């Protein structure tokens, strides 16, 4: 297997080109920090201070709602009713967290949102795996093989990405009912696959568009067929974009509410349904502290995923996943 081609040197070193050269990708050995000449500075210059100031201010703006959520989740309801959402808790309490996980009422049952956790996992794992596989195969076929009509199909798929999900509920319910799988785990996985396919295909297609065509041709000359090349050549080098796709699909599926509500069937209702039951009662009392605690608990899984794969996420897109 030929190693990936490194970027070409500039024609006249030292002179920036007037037109940007097109860079062949991928660059898997890219360091996470750009390589520049190192100079040790003793005192931070105004420019450095400015950079940190800007970033810190932006960080404050981004963190403000999280601060309110955390602070609210540790206050008793009496304190919340008095207002002052930015104030620190005066009567600090862990009760909302305990209630959110295992005590708050979500119907006749009062067991918190933990019941939905495993349902969400059971929905998310197959939905992500299958969607990534489908996106990878589609992107691979679209980039290298380009069968007739595939471009048109891809165009339809992209247009479909703009359609609000609710519009497609009725026809999908009818089709699922005809197929006899409505209200079950396969139904919700299939639905997530359908709605995830446009973005997944887009990601992989753009990624493979950046892979040098010579690589593909060399593999064909070596005697590889469609599946062989995919499984042995393309898929292994797609790790960065797989991580990107996984993050986007996991976030979308984990936080989905309406599709899980309609298609999953009673025994597979995801955590978001329980979360909504906690937050959005129509004429009952609302426990804001429990709401906030429950929301943070629900968001922990995608957050953990970002945190542990953050480097991969950035690096993945570096390798051309978002080239248009």
């Amino acid at each position, binding site marked *: 297997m030929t190693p990936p081609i490194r970027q070409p040197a500039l024609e006249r070193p030292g002179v920036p080109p007037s037109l940007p050269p097109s860079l062949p990708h991928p660059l898997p050995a890219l360091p996470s920090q*750009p390589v520049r000449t190192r100079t040790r500075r003793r005192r931070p210059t105004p420019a450095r201070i400015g950079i940190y100031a800007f970033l810190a201010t932006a*960080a404050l703006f981004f963190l403000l709602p999280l601060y309110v959520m955390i602070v609210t989740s540790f206050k008793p309801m009496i304190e919340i009713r008095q207002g002052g959402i930015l104030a620190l808790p005066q009567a600090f309490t862990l009760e909302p967290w305990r209630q959110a996980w295992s005590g708050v009422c979500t119907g006749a049952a009062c067991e918190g949102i933990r019941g939905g956790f495993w349902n969400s996992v059971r929905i998310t794992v197959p939905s992500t795996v299958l969607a990534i596989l489908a996106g990878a195969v589609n992107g691979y076929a679209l980039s290298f093989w380009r069968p007739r009509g595939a471009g048109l199909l891809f165009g339809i798929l992209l247009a*479909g990405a703009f359609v609000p999900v*609710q519009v497609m509920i009725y026809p999908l319910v009818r089709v699922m009912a005809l197929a006899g799988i409505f209200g079950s785990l396969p139904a919700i996985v299939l639905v997530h696959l359908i709605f995830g396919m446009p973005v997944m295909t887009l990601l992989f297609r753009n990624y493979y568009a950046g892979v040098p065509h010579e690589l593909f041709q060399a593999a064909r000359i070596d005697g590889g067929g469609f599946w062989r090349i995919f499984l042995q050549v393309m898929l292994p080098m797609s790790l960065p974009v797989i991580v990107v796709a996984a993050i986007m699909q996991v976030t979308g599926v984990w936080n989905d509410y309406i599709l899980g509500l309609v298609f999953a069937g009673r025994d597979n209702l995801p955590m978001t349904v329980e979360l909504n039951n906690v937050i959005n009662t129509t004429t009952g009392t609302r426990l804001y502290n429990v709401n906030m605690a429950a929301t943070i608990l629900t968001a922990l899984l995608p957050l953990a995923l970002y945190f542990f794969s953050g480097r991969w996420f950035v690096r993945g897109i570096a390798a051309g996943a978002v080239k248009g």
Partner: protein
Amino acid sequence: MKTARIFPRIVPRLSPHLALLPMALTALVAYLGAALWTLRISLTGSRTFPSGQFIGLAQYQRLFDNERWMLSLHNLALYGVLFVAACLVIGFLLAVFIDQRVRGEGLFRTVFLYPYAMSFVATGLVWQWLLSPGDGIDGAVRALGFAGFRLDWIVRQDLVMYTVVVATVWQAAGLVMALMLAGLRGVDPDIWKAARLDGIPAWRVYTRIVLPMLWPTVATVLLLLSTAVVKLYDAVVAMTQGGPGTASEVPTKFIMDHLFLRSNVGLASAGAVVLLVPVLALLAPYAYARTRKEAA
């Protein structure tokens, strides 16, 4: 593979087509099928259940007579321009600044990305609290001593859409930043060296050289952001419920309300069809440009 041996010529040629079968099924049955079904229903008088009673274009007539729908289209256009512009600018700036070899880059990236992980049902409520006059930011700034400060956009008819822009940019800018950052990281490091040798200031390198190079990244980000604009629903429901009055109404909320709450599937379908038309109008030139680029 056995099958390859039995049909040595046919299977290799069929493999790409067979592999794309799920995509073909999804595109034709799910998306195209649903679109045609929606179009058909929009020509009927369906209420709670889809019915077959044709009434021609009456639903469209009612739609364009409806002030709330016309307002929702206007709001979406306004929102779309502001949201996409703000996300692009803020995302790009954040990416540029993080790219400057800052310490704690991982921490900053997590801080800017975490909103994307949170469900808007609760974060929308938090934004409503923060932007409420009296409590929230308004009261806090006044408590700090700026007595004349007022932040009451969320209760004003003409300014409420801007609050939705603020909250959704908060959620999406981190993702844009991550995508832009990756694009920046793909820029040839030699360009920086060359620019430094030539004495070109950093900001000009960014605007004149790097930004044009990032154009493909920007194009894809634009596509992703546009889908988010058209599907805007959770934020409006969680923050303003379309209010005050109907001032922050958006098409998807109009469609959703009529689909289930008001048991008027026919009108909702008409709205969905009307929403799809400008999307197709925008996508067609993009698709045309791409096919021409690929042919070249």
